[in-house]
C-alpha cells in the first residue's frame, strides 16, 4: 500500500493526492502536523526525510521525497498509458521536465506568498508576488498561443502531463497570497480544463466543478 506523509493544506501534498485520484491509485494518508505542530522538523520525522519536508511517499518500503520526484515516480509506475510522464518521447519528456522546473518557481513565489499571508511565514511577500506575476505572464502567453495551435496543456501533447498538475495548485490558490489572476485569461481557461479532468479532486480553496458546467476550450 502507498502511504503519503501529508498535510491537507499543502500544495505539494495536494499535487500527489490529485495525481493518485486521476490514476485511481489507492493510498493511505499519514497526517503530519506540519502546522502548527512543525512535526516535519521533529527528530522522528527526520528519520523519514532528513530535509524535514513533506510530502514523502512510501510505496511498500520504497521511499521518495520532493513533490516533483514523487509525481515522476507515481506516473512512471502507475500510468500504463505513459502519457502523464511521457518517457518514450525525448522531446516531450524534456519539455515536461522543463515545466516541472517551472513549477518550482511558482511554488517558491505564489505558494510562498500564500504561506506568508495565511500562516505568517517571514517571507518578502512583495518579492514573492512580483515573481509570481512574472511567471504567470509567461504561462499565460504560452497557454494563449497554445490554444491558437490546438494545444490545451502546458506540454505539446493531447494529454495533460504531471507538469500541469505540478503548476496547477500554486496558481489556483494564488489569491490566498494576494495574487490576482484577472490578467491571465488563458491561465484561467487552462485551470478550468484541469478541474474537469475525470476523477479530479479538490482541496480547501480549490473546488471541483459543478456537475453541469462544461469545460472551456480554446
Amino acid at each position, binding site marked *: 500500500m502507498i502511504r503519503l506523509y501529508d498535510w*491537507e*493544506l499543502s500544495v505539494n501534498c495536494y499535487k500527489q493526492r490529485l495525481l493518485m485520484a486521476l490514476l485511481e491509485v489507492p493510498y493511505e494518508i499519514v497526517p503530519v502536523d506540519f502546522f*502548527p505542530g512543525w512535526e516535519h522538523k521533529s527528530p522522528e520525522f527526520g528519520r523519514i526525510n532528513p530535509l524535514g519536508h513533506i510530502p514523502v511517499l512510501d510505496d511498500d518500503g520504497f521511499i521518495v521525497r520532493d513533490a516533483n520526484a514523487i509525481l515522476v515516480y507515481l506516473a512512471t509506475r502507475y500510468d500504463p498509458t505513459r502519457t502523464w510522464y511521457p518517457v518514450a518521447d525525448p522531446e516531450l519528456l524534456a519539455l515536461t521536465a522543463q515545466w516541472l522546473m517551472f513549477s518550482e518557481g511558482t511554488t517558491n513565489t505564489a505558494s510562498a506568498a500564500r504561506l506568508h499571508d*495565511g500562516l505568517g511565514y517571514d517571507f518578502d511577500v512583495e518579492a514573492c508576488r512580483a515573481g509570481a506575476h512574472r511567471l504567470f505572464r509567461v504561462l499565460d502567453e504560452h497557454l494563449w498561443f497554445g490554444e491558437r495551435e490546438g494545444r490545451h496543456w502546458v506540454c505539446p501533447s493531447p494529454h495533460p502531463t504531471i507538469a500541469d498538475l505540478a503548476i496547477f495548485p500554486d496558481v489556483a490558490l494564488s489569491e490566498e497570497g494576494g495574487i490576482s489572476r484577472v490578467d491571465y485569461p488563458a491561465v484561467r481557461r487552462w485551470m478550468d480544463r484541469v478541474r474537469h479532468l475525470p476523477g479530479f479532486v479538490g482541496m*480547501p480553496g480549490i473546488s471541483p466543478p459543478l456537475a453541469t458546467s462544461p469545460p472551456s476550450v480554446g
Partner: protein
Amino acid sequence: MEQSTESDICTDPVIRDQWYPLRALAELPEGATHHTRLLGVPVSCGVTRGRPWARTESAPGDGGTGALPVIDTYGYLWTSLGEPPPGVFEIPEYTEPDRRSMNAGSFIVATSAPRAVENFLDMGHFPYVHTGYLGIEPHTEVNPYDVEIIDGEIWATRCEFFQPMAAATATGGQMSKYTYRVPSPFAVMLYKSSPVDPERRDVIALLLQPMGHEQVVAHNFLCLLDDVNSDAEIKRFQQIIFAQDKPILENQIPRRLPLDPRAETPIRADHTSIVYRRHLRELGVNYGVVPA
C-alpha cells in the same frame, strides 16, 4: 505581514478592554519572541524562564513601548490593550481530565473579527461550504432555535443540523445538536454533541485576535472527547473545515460587518447574527464594523 496604519488603532473602550490570545503556548518555545499586531498596535510576546510576557513595540502615533498585562490560560498567551477583567471567560470543560485540548492552528485571514464570528455562527452554509463534513444536500433546512443574552454573553440553544461527518471521531451521519456562545465580542464558541458520548459535548472556539479592522488571526481552540485520533488527525479535521471557510470570508464585501439593520437581508436562520449585530451596536463597537 502588512504594516499597520494609524487608522487601524482601536479607540473603542469595550474592545480595548478585552483579553485576546496572541499565541498558543505550545508554539512559543522558551526564549523565542513572537511579533504580531493587536488592534493596529505592533506587539510582541514570549516566555522567558517560564514566565509569559507581552509588550507593545513602537506603534504609529504612539512611539512608546511598554509591558502589557498577560494571562496564560486554555493553552494560549492572552493580553489586553486596555483595562481587562480579572480573568478570561470561563470554559469549565477545559479542566475535565479526559479531554484533549489544543490549538488546531492560528490562521491569518483578510477579514474583520465580526465577520469571522458571524460566519462561525451560521449553520446555513454547512451543506454548501463544508459539503460531506458538516452538511450535505438535501439536508439544508435550519430549524428554529432560541437566542438570548445571559450576563452579557449571547447564547443560541436548541440548534440542530444533519451532519455526514461531524468530527474526526464520526463513523457516519448524525443529527448534531449545537449550542453557540459569544462570550466576548470577538470570540465565539460552540458546544456540539460528541460522536463518542451523546451525553457530553465537544467544545470548539474561534478566538479572534484582530490585527486591524480587516485582518485577524483566527486561533482555532479545541477541547474534545477523542481517544482514537492523533493530534495530527484532530487538527487536520478542524483545518479542513476552517480552510473551506477562509476564501468565503476573504471574499465578503464589505470586509467589515454592517451594523445597519437594513444593510443585508437576513433570513430566519440568521437569528443569532441579528442578535450579534444588535449586541455590537448596543456595546458601541466601531472596530471591524460599518457603523449603523
